[in-house]
């Protein structure tokens, strides 16, 4: 399993945001205290396909991968270049992958990487594919209103590319997955899809009680409810994942959860009584890059020597949908 990533080319720091909002409650240090984030990568004009191609090219170059050996491309995004055609088809073309490559998009957010691995494990097991490029590529900032502090302080744009082959089937453990669509209204871009096409009305800006501005064309996130959902769903999912994989909590070398923000991660860590040194938290320079957070964290943890070949890692994704999933990796 090989990992690489590409971040949005621009950076928005806490100082940038503090200057923009110009409110004492939102100084640079207060933003850091609330979120654990110092800066977030953002795209200007780049599309999800651009970030995806960037991450994949870095991966190919670093590991000298022969692109003709790739026979499947899985792309996870909620900001596709077009409704149709499939963004993965565009990426196949730009990466000059063979025409015998299978390619598809799937639409998930924070749980995307775990689900992507479940799909990859299946395709490899049935021999529908022998070498899979699994790409998470997300540009949430394109949906965010600049005057919505609740989301602009949190999200960043990035793509992560992971290469998987048949030997990885046994490196990926058993999955625990879950869905609760009743949570849909709590993290949503209300307009732009078939349910509510964009119009001059959907573009109408509203200001909420907290002074955040957004229209129906922008992301709405109910922070407290999502926080509560996470506390309801994740600890139980982690316990069941350990059970299903016949592992004790102590046998996990590192817990790498979706890097939503530092506060929720610390709460989960404390709830599960995981020692700090075995629980990965790093949102400082990336913020929440949605489906890319887990593979980026795995790559950084490998680079920093926190994990190595043979390490046992429990990964857990949770969020928009609501959707959640976890598994164990033996690297």
């Amino acid at each position, binding site marked *: 399993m090989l990992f690489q990533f590409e971040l949005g080319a621009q950076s928005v720091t806490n100082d940038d945001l503090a200057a923009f909002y110009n409110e004492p409650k939102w100084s640079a240090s207060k933003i850091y205290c609330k979120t654990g984030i110092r800066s977030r990568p953002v795209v200007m004009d780049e599309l999800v396909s651009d970030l995806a191609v960037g991450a994949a090219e870095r991966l190919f170059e670093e590991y000298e991968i022969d692109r003709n050996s790739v026979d499947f491309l899985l792309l996870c995004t909620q900001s596709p270049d077009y409704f149709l055609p499939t963004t993965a088809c565009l990426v196949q073309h730009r990466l000059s992958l063979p025409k015998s490559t299978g390619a598809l998009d799937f639409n998930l957010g924070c749980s995307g990487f775990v689900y992507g691995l479940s799909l990859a494990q299946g395709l490899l097991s049935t021999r529908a594919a022998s070498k899979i490029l699994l790409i998470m590529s997300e540009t949430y900032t394109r949906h965010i209103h600049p005057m919505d502090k609740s989301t602009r302080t949190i999200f960043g744009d990035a793509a992560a590319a992971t290469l998987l082959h048949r030997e990885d089937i046994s490196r990926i453990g058993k999955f625990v997955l879950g869905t609760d669509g009743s949570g849909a209204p709590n993290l949503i871009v209300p307009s732009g899809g078939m349910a509510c096409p964009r119009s001059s009305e959907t573009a109408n800006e509203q200001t909420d009680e907290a002074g955040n501005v957004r229209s129906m064309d922008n992301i709405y996130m109910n922070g407290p*409810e999502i*926080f509560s959902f996470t506390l309801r769903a994740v600890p139980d999912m982690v316990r069941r994942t350990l059970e299903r994989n016949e592992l004790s909590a102590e046998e996990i070398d590192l817990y790498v959860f979706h890097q939503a923000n530092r506060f929720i991660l610390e709460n989960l860590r404390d*709830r599960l009584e995981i020692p700090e040194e075995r629980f990965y938290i790093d949102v400082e320079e990336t913020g929440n890059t949605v489906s890319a957070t887990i593979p980026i964290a795995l790559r950084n943890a490998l680079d920093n020597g926190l994990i190595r070949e043979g390490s046992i890692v429990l990964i857990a994704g949770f969020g928009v949908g609501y959707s959640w999933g976890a598994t164990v990796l033996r690297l």
Partner: protein
Amino acid sequence: MEEKLALIADALDADKEVITPEKVLEELEEWDSMGVIAVISMLDKKYKIQLKADQIKALKTINDILEYMQER
């Protein structure tokens, strides 16, 4: 009771004198989304209860929060 009010004041990072049972939450400067999250976190940690969306919405006074602070 004092202890519970102190826990709430602590979570909200508010002065203890302001946190009385009848206090209307909307009147508190600290009752923003971060404050709500801090209270949800405190209730989960200390009282093992995770509020649902409709329960969060229904919180209007400090008394409403105190209702959830029962030993289990």
